[in-house]
């Protein structure tokens, strides 16, 4: 099987197996991004300084558990690669080279991810790598990447363990770690009036949300917001009645879920059934998905707050052009109805970092690139200005509070921090205004 065939087959697999999340959305993105994937596989597999292209390669679980999210990354990469190539490419030693993107399907499989990164470096001669999606897959990939000695940027590893335990030299992250995840929600609560009496959190019983809960608690204390984790529940639960009743009994008027889509929707649906005395709700990763308003209904979803690690609405003047261009071109690639969320935005940032690193180093030598990564301050990005800290994670890490606002069609408005907000939070949620 040729690389082209394989890519075709992987795209087909991706289309078949993603129906559990968002078949239409996936198909739309994958069908367009597939063209580039295939195009990326054309031509010589040999790269290096003498090639007229720069090969940027990575893996994503295009099939398997995360197949609903990974096409968003792929479309984000594609958008910025297109920008760069349309502008003539990246200048290396006075010569402009276009980026060639090659993304393999790792099927969310740890053994496969190791093999594919080895292949990308040893067979395909990738010049720069992109990390996979999910902390556990990044943890595995990081071990291989560190051995291969090729610089890599990931936008899909939220667990600090990836950088504290494995990645210390070659893998760099443009994604905030999970301990920063909910800070934007606390920022939102710190600015609303009247203040909530108690922000009551219920969380999935896993390590990631335990870290997130602890960090949220410390940040809330600093911000003067009363926050408490009320209950933990099984990730696979289908009933949060007891957790919500417990939160209510302790005086919670702003209920927050630290978890993922099915449980975010479950909490909102059941919280409506158990009280009409809330000021509002916050959910976890569901906030940026199109499935969430579908699962709870537009009326219940309106006004719900959530965290985002990037937003196309960040109100910072020096990224205005990036932001509007990215939004427009992302929609061309991913589909007109698709708003770029933080997965897409940070995927775009990954490519911008690769561009700026190569241009600054004016070389494709891995050591020169790594040296640049550790010393450069990146300013021309969708995420504003940042550099990479000692733990290889971008700094300052950011988290935003967003809220679903609108009438018939809901959109995410950035409501916190105030300095970069695109709208004021609607508070309390209109459904509970008496």
């Amino acid at each position, binding site marked *: 099987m040729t690389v082209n065939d394989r890519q075709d087959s992987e795209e087909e697999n991706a289309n078949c197996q993603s129906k*559990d*999340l968002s078949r239409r959305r996936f198909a739309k993105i994958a069908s367009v991004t597939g063209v580039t994937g295939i195009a990326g596989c054309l031509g010589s597999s040999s790269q290096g300084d003498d090639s007229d292209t720069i090969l940027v390669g990575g893996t994503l679980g295009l099939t398997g558990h995360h197949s609903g999210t990974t096409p968003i990354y792929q479309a984000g990469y594609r958008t910025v690669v297109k920008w760069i190539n349309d502008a003539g490419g990246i200048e290396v030693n006075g010569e402009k080279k276009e980026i060639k993107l090659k993304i393999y399907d790792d099927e969310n499989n740890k053994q496969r991810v190791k093999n594919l990164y080895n292949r990308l470096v040893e067979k395909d001669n990738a010049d720069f790598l992109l990390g996979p999606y999910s902390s556990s897959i990044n943890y595995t990939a990081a071990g291989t990447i560190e051995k291969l000695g090729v610089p890599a940027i990931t936008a899909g590893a939220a667990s600090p363990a990836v950088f504290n335990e494995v990645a210390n030299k070659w893998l760099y992250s443009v994604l905030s770690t999970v301990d920063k995840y909910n800070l934007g929600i606390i920022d939102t609560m710190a600015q609303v009036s009247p203040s909530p009496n108690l922000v009551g959190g219920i969380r999935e019983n896993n390590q990631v949300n335990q870290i997130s809960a602890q960090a949220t608690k410390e940040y809330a204390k600093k911000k003067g917001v009363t926050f408490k984790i009320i209950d933990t529940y099984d990730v696979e639960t289908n009933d949060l009645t007891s957790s919500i009743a417990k939160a209510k009994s302790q005086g919670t008027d702003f209920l927050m879920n630290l978890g993922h889509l099915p449980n975010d929707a479950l909490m909102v649906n059941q919280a409506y059934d*158990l009280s009409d005395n809330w000021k509002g709700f916050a959910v976890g990763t569901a906030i940026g998905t199109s499935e969430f308003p579908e699962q709870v209904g537009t009326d219940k979803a309106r006004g719900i707050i959530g965290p985002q690690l990037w937003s196309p609405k960040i109100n910072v003047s020096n990224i205005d052009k990036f932001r509007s261009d990215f939004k427009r071109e992302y929609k061309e690639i991913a589909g007109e109805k698709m708003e770029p969320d933080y997965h897409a935005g940070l995927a775009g940032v990954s490519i911008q970092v690769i561009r700026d690193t190569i241009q600054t180093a004016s070389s494709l030598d891995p050591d020169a690139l790594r040296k640049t990564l550790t010393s450069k301050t990146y300013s021309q990005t969708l995420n504003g200005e940042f550099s990479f800290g000692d733990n290889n994670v971008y700094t300052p890490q950011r988290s935003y509070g967003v809220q679903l606002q609108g009438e018939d069609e809901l959109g995410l408005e950035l409501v916190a921090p105030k300095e970069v907000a695109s709208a004021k939070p609607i508070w309390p949620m209109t459904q509970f205004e008496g």
Partner: protein
Amino acid sequence: MPDPTYIAQLVLSGLLLGGLYALLAVGLTLIYGVMHFINLAHGDFMIVGAFVTYVLWNALGLHPLLILPIVMVIGFIFVIPIHKTIFEPILDDSVINQLLLTFGLAIMLEALLSFLFGLNSRGVQVEGFASSTIEIGGVFLPMMRILVFVFALVILTALYLFLHYTHIGMGIRATAQDPTAAQVVGVDIDRIQLLVMGIGSALAFGSGALLATILSFEPFSGLTYILIAFAVVSVGGLGSMAGALVAGLVLAIFQTVSTIWVPSSIGNAILFLVFLIMLLVRPEGLFGSIEHGRGLYD
């Protein structure tokens, strides 16, 4: 001391959920009571019922409670080929063989459901009156949960009346008491066994239809529910319908009320702790098992 309203909320939430547990467990206990057959796929039958409800609700646009009788009939028919080809040949085999085979069936059903529907959680949305909530002294009771409880009780009452006041029902009870004697007096044991398997499956499908209206479900949810059904049946007494009803309600209340003191994440563990204690202290269950001369025919 926790707020009385909070305790009342949990007790009533548990009670309403208990109706569903009882309905599921009664199907399991009925089959065991008559055939001494343990169907580990019973929880997956429930989930198949939930998916059938989901499909019919999407296709017909009818209120899920109107779909309930159709789903139960489908459940009855669904098990007939399974009984004839898989269950009947092993009815007299060892319990281990029954467990292994029905466990295999459960895995097969889960794989089939995940292939057909993917891994996402599903649920059936109710609207109008059924989606309202009643507030009594600060305790909020979703109307759909009340309706599920009422429907579960109605089905269980109908089953009780069927078993006690119809000719076929008496045949079923006679088979449960003494299959040989029942056969001697003219009861067609094979037919009774098929009928009981059909009723058990219809009850599982029916509980799945009710589940779909109040809780989310996915292809692999069956395991959780078969464990709950086992706990209920064991605590109530193997083969005892009344035991399954009482144990279903008690265990569900226990499960929810325990979350006052422990995290919800170990709510199921509490339920199984009660189950284990019961096995140690009173292995025949609250109402005594069929081996102890009590049960289905009470």
